[in-house]
């Protein structure tokens, strides 16, 4: 019987306590905000959309290798010695034409692993977090600043250069080979003549 009355009393009393708490909260200012109109200020280290500053990129491929989901796709073409690609802001000399720098942001997992290995700090995370698209393809960001024509040109350039180099190399090799052959021939000749000489000399002697 006592338990019975106690149960009744506890039931009513704890409900009243609970109601007191919720009633108090009726007058507590709300903690939510009207999102698209009002926005929460983001802290400085915030990790959202990736951005690549192509002026500084040297095409070293370190970010792509660090990425756990393979969302960065980089293609580069070597420059020819005559071309000046300029310098990055921290004084590194560029040596590669970055013909393709695609980030599939739909795959990106925002882990920031690509940011740390970058030697020129050119890939970083910005505070943009509203970038939904209607088509998946539009989420693949092309950062490369080069026009397709330019890319072709650079490729051609490099190939030409390569070809030239090859040719030069080949020529050099040929020359070298020739030289070597020549040298050999000469040597042989020398030896021959020497031999001859010796022979002759021997002959002479004999």
């Amino acid at each position, binding site marked *: 019987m006592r338990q019975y009355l106690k*149960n*009744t009393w506890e039931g*009513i009393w704890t*409900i009243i306590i*609970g*109601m007191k*708490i*919720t*009633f108090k*909260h*009726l*007058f*507590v*200012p*709300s*903690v*939510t*905000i*009207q999102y698209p109109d009002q926005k929460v200020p983001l802290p400085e280290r915030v990790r959202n959309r990736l951005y690549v500053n192509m002026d500084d990129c040297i095409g070293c491929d370190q970010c792509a290798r660090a990425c756990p989901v393979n969302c960065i796709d980089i293609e580069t073409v070597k420059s020819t010695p005559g071309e000046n690609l300029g310098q990055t802001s921290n004084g590194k000399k560029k040596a590669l034409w970055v013909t393709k720098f695609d980030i599939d942001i739909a795959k990106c997992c925002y882990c920031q692993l690509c940011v740390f290995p970058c030697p020129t700090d050119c890939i970083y995370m910005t505070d943009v977090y509203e970038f939904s698209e209607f088509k998946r393809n539009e989420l693949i960001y092309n950062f490369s600043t080069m026009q397709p024509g330019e890319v072709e040109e650079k490729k051609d350039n490099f190939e030409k250069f390569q070809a030239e180099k090859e040719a030069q190399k080949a020529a050099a090799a040929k020359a070298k080979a020739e030289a070597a052959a020549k040298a050999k021939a000469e040597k042989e000749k020398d030896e021959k003549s020497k031999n001859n000489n010796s022979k002759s000399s021997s002959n002479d002697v004999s």
Partner: protein
Amino acid sequence: MYESLVEITGLEIFAAFVSAAMPVAFLVPFVIIAVYLERKVSAHMQDRLGPMRVGYHGLLQTIADFFKLIQKEDIVAEGIDKKFFNFAPFLVFAGSYAVYAALPFSSKYIGSETDLGIFYIIAISGLVVAGILMAGWTSNNKYSLYGAMRSAAQIISYEIPTALVILSIIMWTGTMSLATMSEMQTAYFWNWNILGGPEWGITKFVLIPFLLVAFIILYVSTLAEVNRTPFDMPEAESELVAGYHTEYSGMKFAMFFLAEYGNMFAVSAIVSVIFFGGYQSPFGYLGNTLGIEWLVPFEQVFWFAAKGIFFVFVQMWLRWTLPRVRVDQLMTICWKYLIPYSFVNLLVIGIITLL
């Protein structure tokens, strides 16, 4: 109202239709406000803002939702009994709407001034059970079935403490008509039943604690009858998804919704009529002081609605505070706690009334 209309026009059918349609004019705006209130109350209790977009502070949100519900596709799943499936929401709504016939909105308006008002309400609200069972059974969904079964057991069980409490009040006031009951508790709040009624004397003060108990029992059991938290077993969203209306969509779902909110107000109104003077103002009438006779019924409607909405607010308040009881505990509360208490209460009030 019905009688006076018959007298004026002489057309019984016209009078019946008009007086039957009156509560709709009250119910629909009420539901719109109540749904808005529910969302705002819950939001502010939880330190949120709630609906803010449609209209000033989201005032038109419910209307927007209503249009959304109308536009929605009426999904009828395969393998269900279509006839009864379609009929069930209307039956539930009819059950809850029929209650309004006996509610005295003011001294001048009552749908049907029957002498058995209160028992009519208890009887007619049983119709809701039939509708819910029908909805649950024909949905051909296990969750719906469980919800409906629980609901039926719950509503029928909780009618017993309700009836017992009402019995004790009837015994004491000596009337079954809600209109008469409200009339007795004339203006000024110390005449309300919860404070011992209009007659001054020792009995008034002796009765107060017992009437308070009676009020709590009545309030709790009506709460259970309308399936509100902590007794929302039939809909228990974390167990039964949405209970008996899992399979309903669009307008049919809206009918259940309407019925639920209609019921909420109806039981709140009954509580206010029985214990809190119904349409009577707590401080006397402005119309009487100013000598404007026609203002009084409007003031009464205002007080009636205000009291009803206050109790609806308390229901919401409870809902956003309390967890849900389990189905067997629900029965325990009813059979082991409320019914014994109400029997004792009945006895005591009876003895006091006799003396």
